[in-house]
């Protein structure tokens, strides 16, 4: 699997993702700046967490105008796998690659805590190493992670099994406890929790590794 980790000015989790996907999960990964205009040749594009362009207007609102965005859109439309984490999720919704929006947490405070999550759909390219209903614990670290979509959108998301991860104890007020979704085609996923922060026992857990291993299994055929 060859993965690109996008790096927007103000992203601060690109290096963390590179470390998780590369040295830890064992895939080939490299940082690609937001000025890149071509993403061909990659199997997976990761959109990292952080505060792109400071996120002063609204999370992800400025990043959607970055030079790389047309290439990202083309990559997704061609069926390439895209995973947006935290700010990456916000960017994908702002860019219209995923439905809904992320607004301020219910209590208006930034939250950094490990959160138990239920894997709702274990058939996606991102979650096939988990089992349906499995509870995994991943850290969250966000101020604007409160997922919102109108009722029609939510109903459609559920009908098409696009809700992949739900919070067990909804920490931020997200509609229907949603922590992560895919697009209808299933090749673009966004999630607020940080799987790249849960890939080493030394740092408190390895529940996030399954996401990267799932993608490697899909991209490389078999993953030992």
């Amino acid at each position, binding site marked *: 699997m060859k993965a690109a980790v996008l790096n927007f000015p103000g992203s601060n989790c690109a290096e963390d993702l590179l470390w998780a996907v590369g040295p830890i999960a064992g895939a080939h990964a490299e940082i690609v700046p937001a000025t890149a205009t071509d993403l061909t040749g990659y199997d997976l594009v990761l959109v990292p967490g952080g505060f792109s362009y400071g996120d002063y207007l609204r999370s992800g609102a*400025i990043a959607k105008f970055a030079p790389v965005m047309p290439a990202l859109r083309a990559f997704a439309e061609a069926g390439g796998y895209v995973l947006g984490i935290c700010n990456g999720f916000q960017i994908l919704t702002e860019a219209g690659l995923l439905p809904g*929006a992320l607004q301020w947490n*219910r209590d208006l405070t930034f939250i950094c805590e490990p959160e138990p999550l239920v894997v709702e759909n274990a058939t996606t390219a991102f979650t096939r190493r988990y089992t349906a209903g499995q509870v995994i614990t991943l850290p969250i670290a966000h101020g604007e992670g409160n997922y*919102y979509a*109108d009722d029609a959108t939510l109903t459609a998301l559920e009908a098409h099994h696009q809700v992949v991860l739900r919070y067990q104890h909804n920490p931020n*007020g997200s509609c229907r406890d949603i922590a992560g979704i895919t697009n209808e085609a299933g090749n673009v996923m966004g999630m607020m929790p940080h799987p790249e922060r849960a890939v080493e026992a030394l740092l408190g857990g390895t529940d996030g590794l399954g996401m990267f291993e799932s993608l490697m299994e899909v991209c490389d055929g078999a993953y030992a």
Partner: protein
Amino acid sequence: MYKAKIFVNYKPSVLDPKATVIQQTLTRLGQTNVDSVMVGKYFELVLQGNEAAVNEQVAKLCSEMLANVNMETYRYTLEEVEA
């Protein structure tokens, strides 16, 4: 040259945490006469160009950048200003 005054608001169906927190705080402080709180954003942009062009540009800016139309609505006015 035109000055655009732009208001961005949550759609009524969206529960706004900022408004909720303000309302809760007011209640806690005993100010129970406040029936509703709405929190929005306000932008003022000064743009060069003729009215039609500026109007089109501002509308696009609002829908693509200043507001997230999934959860927000916007409205704006234009007024001519001296250079």
